[in-house]
């Protein structure tokens, strides 16, 4: 049961506009909004309506919004929206194609409390990037990122800027060079993500699809370069925790083995341009159960229904129970044998709800390699004190378990801490328990005095 009594540090991905000046070859968004008559009817909210939506989201405990689109800066009021969200206690970031983030908006940008800009760039050269994203885009985006980097250094005001690159068949050969380019233009991090076979990508699979084997081989190449000390910070979104562990052990990299996978409904939701809220980007219409029944997710606007009310509705709670029940993924192979399942990895449960027996090919391949190459591989998930604290700060279920049963929780999640970190963690929990014990009488009496609140 998820603890709904705390802030939960809720996170929303908000498609703030459906409009975009580009038509990227693998785009999820515009192809969705232009993909059917039904989706065509989804219109952007006005500024005031967005503000109202933000108030509703804030009331629901949302403290983090990542704005996507379309192209968010297509809206002239985008930074007004960021300002308003910030005033409500929401940390904002924006996913942008970068074409509008020119020096002309620097003053306005630095006047905001924007946390992060994620630029999309899909190649290290115009020849590779532009056929995917549009003619002239590479030059424009790299110039804009470099200018922003120069400006933040000049102002000594830090707005994070990172690059997100979708790895495809057409650009994989340039990923090493991407690291050089990212470093040159001042990207704080470079994220490699796999192609998702949806939206326009589904129509261009023959040109774009990069299979698991190819993806893994690329990961190995990059890991070797990173291990030699390449200055660019890289986040590998190319595979499962198994891949990260394998690469770390084989090449000495230090890719974090951090929580990933589905967090829909626990801490994350998705909002479309018209304010309709859904559990995630993948679950905006319906899914089909084992029995072949279509379960439709009602189209509910945060403006009309309220974000808190939707998020904590019986339907969402019911979905939550179904998504995260212990045996939800028992049909997944090799997840059902993997130490990471439930500890830090929780693949999308929808295929499982459909009753599909899903084989995670990349993980199967990984397990085979680990065995063949005799990589030391225990049933433990290495983790640090700080990573556990971080998880506890955003994951209410884990936090509550850890607080009451620290050792048992560590065991249940197969975590392995150094003795020093373990002692430190136990001490932290002990301190918190002692503190609460000490204050419990006062809290109890305060509540009693207030009678019915």
């Amino acid at each position, binding site marked *: 049961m998820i603890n709904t009594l705390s802030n939960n540090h809720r996170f929303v991905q908000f498609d703030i506009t459906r409009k975009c000046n580009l038509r990227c070859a693998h785009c999820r968004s515009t192809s969705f909004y232009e993909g059917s008559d039904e989706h065509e009817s989804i219109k952007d909210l006005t500024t005031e309506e967005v503000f109202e939506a933000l108030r509703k989201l804030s009331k629901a405990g949302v403290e983090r919004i990542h704005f996507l689109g379309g192209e968010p800066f297509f809206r002239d009021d985008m930074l007004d929206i960021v300002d308003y969200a910030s005033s409500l*206690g929401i940390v904002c970031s924006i996913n942008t194609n970068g074409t509008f983030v020119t020096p002309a908006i620097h003053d306005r940008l630095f006047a905001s409390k924007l946390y992060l800009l994620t630029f999309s760039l899909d190649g290290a050269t115009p020849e590779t990037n532009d056929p995917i994203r549009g003619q002239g885009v590479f030059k424009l985006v790299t110039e804009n990122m470099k200018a922003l980097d120069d400006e933040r250094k000049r102002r000594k005001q830090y707005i994070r800027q990172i690059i997100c690159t979708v790895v495809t068949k057409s650009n994989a050969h340039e990923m090493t060079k991407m690291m050089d380019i990212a470093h040159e233009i001042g990207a704080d991090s470079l994220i490699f993500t796999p192609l998702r076979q949806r939206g326009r990508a589904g129509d261009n699979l023959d040109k774009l699809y990069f299979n698991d084997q190819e993806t893994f081989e690329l990961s190995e190449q990059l890991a070797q370069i990173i291990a030699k000390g390449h200055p660019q910070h890289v986040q590998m979104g190319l595979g499962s925790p198994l891949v990260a562990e394998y690469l770390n052990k084989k090449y000495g990299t230090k890719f974090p083995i951090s929580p990933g996978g589905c967090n829909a409904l626990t801490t994350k939701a998705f909002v479309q341009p018209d304010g309709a809220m859904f559990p995630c980007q993948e679950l905006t219409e319906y899914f089909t159960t084992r029995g072949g029944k279509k379960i*439709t997710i009602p189209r509910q606007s945060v403006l009309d229904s309220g974000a808190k009310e939707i998020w904590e509705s019986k339907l969402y709670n019911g979905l939550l129970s179904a998504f995260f029940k212990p045996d939800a993924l028992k049909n997944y192979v090799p997840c059902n044998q993997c130490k990471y399942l439930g500890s830090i990895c929780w693949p999308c449960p929808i295929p499982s709800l459909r009753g599909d027996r899903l084989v995670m090919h990349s993980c199967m391949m990984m397990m085979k390699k680990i065995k063949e190459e005799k990589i030391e591989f225990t049933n433990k998930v290495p983790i640090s004190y700080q990573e556990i604290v971080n998880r506890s700060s955003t994951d209410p279920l884990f936090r509550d378990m850890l607080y009451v049963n620290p050792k048992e929780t560590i065991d249940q999640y197969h975590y392995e801490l150094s003795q020093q970190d373990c002692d430190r963690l136990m001490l932290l929990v002990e301190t918190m328990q002692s503190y609460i014990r000490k204050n419990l009488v006062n809290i109890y009496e305060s*509540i009693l005095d207030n009678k019915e609140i």
Partner: protein
Amino acid sequence: MQNLSVWLENEATNLGLDIEKLSNNQKYNLNKILFQMIENGFRIRSDNPDIRFGNKSGILKDSVLLSAGEVELQTIIESVEIIPIDNCTNGTCMYPCDPGSGRDQNGACTNGTCGGGPRDAISRSCTDGTCTHETPTGCTNGQSSCSNNGCVNSGTAACTNNGGSNFTCTDTDCHNISEGGCIDSGPCFDVYCGNTMGCEDKVNACLDQPCSNTPQGQGLKCIDSGNCSDISCRNEGLPSQQNSCVDGLCKDDVCCNRVCIDGNTGDCEDDVCGNGRECKDGTFSCKDSACMNSGSVAQESCTNQNCVDNSCVDFNLCSDGSAGADPTTCTDNNCQNAGCHYSIAATCIDTWCQVDSTEKTGCYIPNPSDQGCLASDDHCDCQSSKECIEK
């Protein structure tokens, strides 16, 4: 594994506080304050980049109000100091738990040494006569008291012991610890109750709010033949893994009627009934406010005869703009002519969509420095790509 609510109740009891004196609301608020204190305790120690940014930039507030009546509650919360960070001067924050007695580093706590003896590494103060930190042994049937923190009841069955009305169950499966588990005949009061073993009691006295009857095993769901009265009962997790309401009167609020296989298909009363999907009753009388007719998304639309919901969108093209009562026309107020599509110029009557091209998908100008549109776009005379798209 013990849960937080039970921990709170145990602590309160040890401190001589009478939890039963509190109303359900007050219990809820007590839990809420506790949870928030713990959350804050971890958050101020987090180095999660966005939390850190939010704190440094002054964006994040200490807490977020959640529901009615919480102004008073917030006052209480604010009156309670956030769990302080230790004044850690060394890198590891290693302190002895008890300077007087030292720490038991291996965590072992035996009956012989525990009564009033040294504290163990997890700070389970052993103050009772029978050690509260003994090796997990499981809750034996008939045992009247299982109060040791380490008791996890490693067996798959919940505490089925019925040795007394005051026994405490701390095993992993059973969340209704305060009253001995969900299978007892008494009421279950704790807010956090999960009833994970299923409400099998015939009196249906599961009063906790978030009770979900989530299956822990199989076949342990609402199989009572009468009313399933807990609010969130989802009736799922039957052996077949189908979400089946097998009770005779499927009326629980969140049952989506996914597979209402009970004989009574005449009345679908749940709030989120989608109708058009699973409501197989012949009357099509979908009365719920959330009816979206989603079963026919992108196909017909409101095909049932009594569609009274406001949000019916009518996914037909509605290109004729006429009104009527059959699926070929658009009768709802929200119809925006969804048929307008870049590639279907002929049906585009929306004022905002003016791209009159069956080939291009809009003013395709990736480089604003061109200050105009593609040469092939005869209709675009705007000064910037943004303006062009907006037109």
